[in-house]
């Protein structure tokens, strides 16, 4: 399959880039640990001062487990190509893809997975330690079958988050000077995904609204599959929802990029 070769090459290039920046990645993991640390202290303080044993429907153990997992999963699904895309459009590098038999979407996807791989391996390793630690110190037990299901939802979550940010990146076709807008959107989306606090914390109405948006399927849902908040019988419907959202985002991405590149050509890149 010669047409696949170039994407494998792109994958490799992404992989190499990630290795080159391994120090940066390690450091970003350290700074990702800070919020986990802060939130754990907050929850500890809240639970110590609260009267009941449950807050927002979570036990203390579940809440700590959620906080750790949310930090890791949010890091795991995180993209980071938004500014690369912006740069491609700004400098006109994007036009290369319009004339070459190399699709931009598969190029980005292959590059993304290549870059993601070393990090995923590392985070999954940490995750194993966290799960063992949670089990040992807090007595949080996790069933093996849930771990397997979690991994499936995780792959879907990564794909979904990729598509969400791929859609967002198409903004570059309309405005190139956007400062740190993507950074702002990223942090808000993490919040809406449940990457900082469990969504239940913000009330039932908020959760209802979030049920109609794709974001919670990137962080909140995989974690709840793992920690047992979602009964076995309902896991399947969540996965179906993930797939539906992936489909919808694909359509949206396709549409946005089609009109975007049309504009790119019209304006003259």
């Amino acid at each position, binding site marked *: 399959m010669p047409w696949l070769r170039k994407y494998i090459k792109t994958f490799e290039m992404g992989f190499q880039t990630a290795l080159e920046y391994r*120090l940066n990645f390690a450091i970003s993991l350290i700074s990702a640990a800070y919020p986990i640390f802060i939130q754990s202290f907050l929850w500890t303080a809240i639970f110590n*001062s609260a009267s009941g044993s449950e807050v927002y429907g979570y036990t203390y153990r579940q809440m700590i487990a959620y906080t750790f997992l949310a930090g890791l999963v949010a890091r795991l699904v995180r993209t980071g190509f938004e500014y690369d895309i912006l740069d491609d459009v700004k400098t006109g590098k994007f036009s290369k893809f319009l004339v070459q038999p190399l699709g931009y979407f598969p190029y980005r996807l292959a590059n993304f997975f290549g870059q993601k791989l070393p990090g995923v391996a590392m985070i999954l390793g940490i995750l194993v330690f966290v799960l063992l630690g949670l089990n040992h110190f807090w007595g949080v037990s996790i069933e093996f079958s849930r771990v397997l299901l979690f991994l499936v939802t995780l792959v879907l979550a990564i794909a979904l988050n990729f598509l969400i940010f791929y859609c967002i990146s198409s903004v570059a076709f309309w405005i190139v000077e*956007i400062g*740190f807008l993507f950074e702002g959107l990223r942090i808000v989306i993490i*919040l809406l995904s449940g990457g*900082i606090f469990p969504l239940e914390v*913000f009330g039932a109405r908020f959760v209802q609204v979030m049920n109609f948006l794709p974001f919670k399927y990137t962080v909140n849902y995989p974690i709840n599959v793992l920690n047992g908040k979602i009964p076995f019988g309902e896991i399947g419907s969540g996965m179906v929802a993930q797939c539906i959202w992936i489909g919808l985002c694909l359509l949206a991405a396709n549409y946005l990029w089609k009109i975007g590149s049309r504009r790119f050509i019209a304006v003259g890149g």
Partner: protein
Amino acid sequence: MAAVLREIKKHLTLYGLLIKFSVMSQMEYRSNFFGNMAMEAGYLLVKLSYVIVIYRSGVAINGFSPDVFLLFIGTFVALTGVYAGFFMINDYDLRRKIKDGDLDVLLTKPVSLQFMATLRQADLGIFGVDAVAGGIMIIIAWGRLKLPVTVGSVGGYLGFLAISCLVSYSLFLLPQILSFWFMNTSAIAEITDSFWDFNNLPMTIYTQAIQLIGVFVLPIFVISNFPPLFALNRMNPVYIAWAAALPLILLGLVRLLWQRGLKAYSSASS
């Protein structure tokens, strides 16, 4: 003495000009300006989510009511505006300047190099978002807590805010000065920058040991805890003495390290 005062006046005038220039430059790229404001608003939203969590939990944490938390978080948000809007952007630029030799011409000018190199840029958009939001949070908390509105209480609070600004300027500049010796300090910078977020919540939620370290060893807690603690009348004499001494100690350290770094800069390059 008169000469010192004249220098201070000159540098204040220059600072006014630099801020004006920063705004004018930003207005040339307006969508960037608004993009940065959007980012800051995003971060603000996350900080507010902590407030929501605390209010909705409805418990007094370690004896602090949610309104007290609001006062702390409001103070933190407002100071984040100062840090991100006036200090942080220059820190990133300092590394580049040292690397590219951009300090050369500045060194020959009759003006403080440290001033020109660390306070040149300002982002009033970022500052504005946080200052307004933080200000509103502080005022609401102040009212709900029925804190006195007197010259002493408000003035004292503002005085501690000023101390916090000095502490954040010097504390977060210190690691950046290492760029004079090491070319690649972005890693260190990223770690120290995210230290800032430890102030998102009052230090009472941490253990006693962490509190001691955060006040006296790596004094980040001083920044966003002392002003509200003063407003709540909870400052003890040790804290007050420390608040008075710390800015002087830190500014002295910055000065010392800066001079050393400059010596290295002018000895090691060609």
